[in-house]
């Protein structure tokens, strides 16, 4: 089937920053994103788990599929939000069906 090149940006970010990140993405003209849960993990700031937590703690993952030419705009918007925060930003190549949607 016909597929088109795109970029998949995955941002793992602290839960209390999630809304700020998605707002920033929207302002930067990103058309779509999905929010995925993260149950726990480990990093330079130690280990954590969502088990039994009551507050808005831990990390979340925001995933965006975008056209390659829009990558830089997105990364800049995202970087401003994550800059001072814990988090991981990864970019990978992918192909999408129905490219007209992006």
């Amino acid at each position, binding site marked *: 089937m016909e597929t088109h090149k795109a970029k998949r940006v995955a941002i793992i970010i*602290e839960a*209390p*920053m999630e809304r700020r990140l998605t707002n920033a993405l929207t302002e930067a003209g990103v058309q779509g994103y999905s929010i995925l849960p993260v149950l726990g993990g480990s990093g330079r*700031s130690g*280990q954590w788990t969502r088990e*039994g*937590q*009551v*507050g808005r703690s831990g990390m979340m993952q925001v995933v965006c599929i975008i056209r390659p030419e829009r990558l830089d705009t997105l990364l800049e918007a995202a970087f401003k939000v994550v800059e001072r925060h814990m988090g991981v930003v990864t970019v990978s190549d992918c192909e999408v069906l129905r490219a007209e949607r992006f």
Partner: protein
Amino acid sequence: MADIFDLATTNLLSPVILFFVLGVAAALARSDLSVPEAAAKTLSLYLLFAIGFKGGASVAAHGVDARLIASLGAGVVLSFFLPFIAFGLLRVMTNLNRLDAAAVAAHYGSISIVTFVAATSVLESRLIDSEGYMVAVAAMMEAPAILSALWLVARGAPDGGRMDATLLREIMLNGSIVLLVGSFAIGAITGQDGLEKIASFIVAPFTGVLCLFLLDMGLVAGRGLREVRGQISMATVAFAVLMPLIGSTIGLGFGLLIGLSAGGVALMMVLSASASYIAVPAAMRVALPEANPSIYLTLSLGVTFPFNLTIGIPLYVAVASAIVGVN
């Protein structure tokens, strides 16, 4: 004195405390016992719902009191003011930097609603009445401390903390405050009538639910303690025991000044003594991301919370009863 010990023992051997201890022990022993996140969040919604509603219904029953406004005002003042004391103490007693000290201070100006809930259940079992609006005072004390902490940071480093309109709205409208105040209002509007309709949901099973919730809190606290072993100085730990004693003394003063009942004074002490571990940590991650979360979470949830639960509450109740007298 004997009374205090007696009260402390009764308290220590209540199911509520023992389930907290079980949770801590299980976590330290690395048991895989755990409460699902959704369940923990739901239990906490239940406690806010129940405690708010009961407070409101009690206000409806006993009428609004001239002291209500004074108590709310006292709550706001305490929440603004306590972080300065905490900050000063931390800078003198410990080697925490300005940022970490301010972040910790914010937690001690704010409150822990579960500590408050545990205290009301001790008062109830001792048959000591308290003003229903103390739950509204609790709500008033959640947020101001955060502003004080950010001001303390900003004084030291102009671009240190981030406070903007969005954050302010998030803090004022955070879920706990909205549910607590909303349930309080609904309790006040619907009164005894409303309370009767839902009493077998919010009154009868309350202590049992609290046990389950404290089991979870114990698990979370114990897991935290296991993680930070040795990373936090003894002086910092000492602060987390000293500060509630100072806070409660100041709370005592305000309570007496306002002329609250013995139960009300005890709750004012508990609020001043307790430290936030839900709303403030989230606000700190946004406003002071460079502050180390394991310090403030360990102190608040790992040290001060268990201290208040086991020793603090019976102490505050005994002191308040001794000074104000229980009719």
